[in-house]
């Protein structure tokens, strides 16, 4: 399965690189896009000094984890945005006929060029913000950070998989994905305990954004005092990411049963 994935990914990558200027410009555009969204947060902190008692270096660290998670998610699952189209136009027929997992084929139908820019940007950002953050780094903490970024990607992937899986029945899920994406982009970099408690819980249990940056960052920064969940729960974020992701994959596969080929 992994081998198949690697082969398909490499094929897509080769295809995307055929148009070299386009590849570079798209990746560069994505990089700038991320930079501008960081600038939003930068301006807010410049104006306010602190947010919920967190300084610039701490908020930037949350942002670093989230942007790395988002970049990895984009590389693996960016194609989910096209699920509606694949289902509606019957491209999914083809995936069912081939002896490879249909989801795997959907994920690799095109190479997500923007993810290259995102990953370059996020790697630099997460490194710089991790060094700048008031954390005394040990091997264990660095390992936890690595797990947290992967967990962050898995949480986002789980949300997007769950939504796009509804496409087989609803045919239109893009608005829902767009709203979820907006929530992730808008709230992503902030310490979520500043939000009204009801919203914080929504962003933990319904749309699990808190697991994707705030919880692990709070653990590493020693800011567990402000958490609105038990500390062990926050600490388990990367593990919960794996669990949610596995559940979402299973859900997606179950939903494919409701696929009805268009025009039949």
């Amino acid at each position, binding site marked *: 399965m992994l081998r198949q994935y690697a082969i398909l990914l490499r094929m897509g990558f080769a295809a995307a690189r055929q148009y070299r*200027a*386009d*590849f*570079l*410009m*798209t*990746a*560069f*555009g*994505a990089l*700038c*896009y991320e930079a*501008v*969204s960081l*600038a*939003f947060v930068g*301006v*807010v902190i*410049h*104006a*306010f000094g*602190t*947010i*919920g*008692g967190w300084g610039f270096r701490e908020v930037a660290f949350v942002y670093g984890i989230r942007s790395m998670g988002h970049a990895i998610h984009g590389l693996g699952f960016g194609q989910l945005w096209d699920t509606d189209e694949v289902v509606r136009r019957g491209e999914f027929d083809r995936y069912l006929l081939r002896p490879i997992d249909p989801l795997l084929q959907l994920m690799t139908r095109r190479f997500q*060029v*923007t993810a290259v*820019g995102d990953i370059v940007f996020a790697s630099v950002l997460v490194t710089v913000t991790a060094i700048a953050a008031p954390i005394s780094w040990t091997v264990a903490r660095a390992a936890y950070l690595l797990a947290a970024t992967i967990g962050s990607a898995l949480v986002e992937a789980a949300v997007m998989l769950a939504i796009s899986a509804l496409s087989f029945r609803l045919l*239109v899920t*893009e*608005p829902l994905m*767009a*709203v979820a994406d*907006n*929530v992730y982009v*808008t*709230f992503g970099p*902030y310490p979520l305990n*500043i*939000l*009204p408690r009801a*919203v914080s819980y929504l962003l933990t249990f319904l749309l699990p954004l808190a697991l994707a940056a705030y919880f692990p960052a709070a653990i590493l920064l020693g800011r567990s005092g402000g958490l609105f969940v038990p500390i062990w729960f926050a600490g388990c974020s990367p593990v919960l990411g794996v669990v949610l992701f596995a559940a979402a994959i299973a859900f997606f596969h179950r939903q494919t049963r409701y696929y009805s080929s268009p025009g039949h």
Partner: protein
Amino acid sequence: MTAIRAVYSQVRIGWRTPWAYRGPTLLTMMILAAQIALYTVVWRAIYRGHSGTVHGTSVDVAVAYVILGLTVASVLDLWPRQSIASRVREGLIGVDLLRPIGLLTQTLATQVGNVAANIPQTVIGLGMGFALGGLVPAHGPGAAAAFVLSLVFAFAVSQLITLLMGLSSFWTLEVGGTTMLFGVVRTFLSGTVIPLWFMPGWLRTIADVLPFQAATFTPLSIYFGRPTGGLLAALGVQAGWVIVLFGLCSWVWSRAQRRVVIQGG
């Protein structure tokens, strides 16, 4: 007379397109509603623990600002790919050039129709803002009147910026993520989400010398009674940008005519 009819038919095309493609139009509306709700929550949360005003801005103004900003931008700020860029890519620009009115006129006419079709979005934006208790009245009757006038200028500036970006596709053929990048830079520097008041000095200077702020920030700053350099100066800068951008569009188009590539032709 025939020219007027020709222009009008272009306006009608622009007006009808969003209603023909209802899916994407509904999507924009949902995103607008969601963004307004999200930013309202975020601003209120950020302000908690900061009593009074920050950079002269209270939480009520910050929230009302972002509601109005997102609403105005959702009506005015069209994506350039809806205009010239896609026509160039698909080779349809050849048809456009055969039409009895110039390309600039017809593109602007289509955009006007497009903007008009977007106006119902103000109901969504302001309705959402009202539901969240985030709207505040204008600084005074004078500010309200000047706000409306400034919106007219903002409309012109915004359409000319979109047109200019569209014209650039004669060179770039819409390479890669330029449209996406343009969108986010425009949102940031026009002060749609974050008022320019919050920006550090150097960034404020950059925003001030570019045309984007004249398309959103200026009318909003007038609404809240804080126009940059006074009311007349703020309106004057907008008018200036209308002239400069119009000149730029004509100049770029005169250069572009010599290098039109009709793909598939």
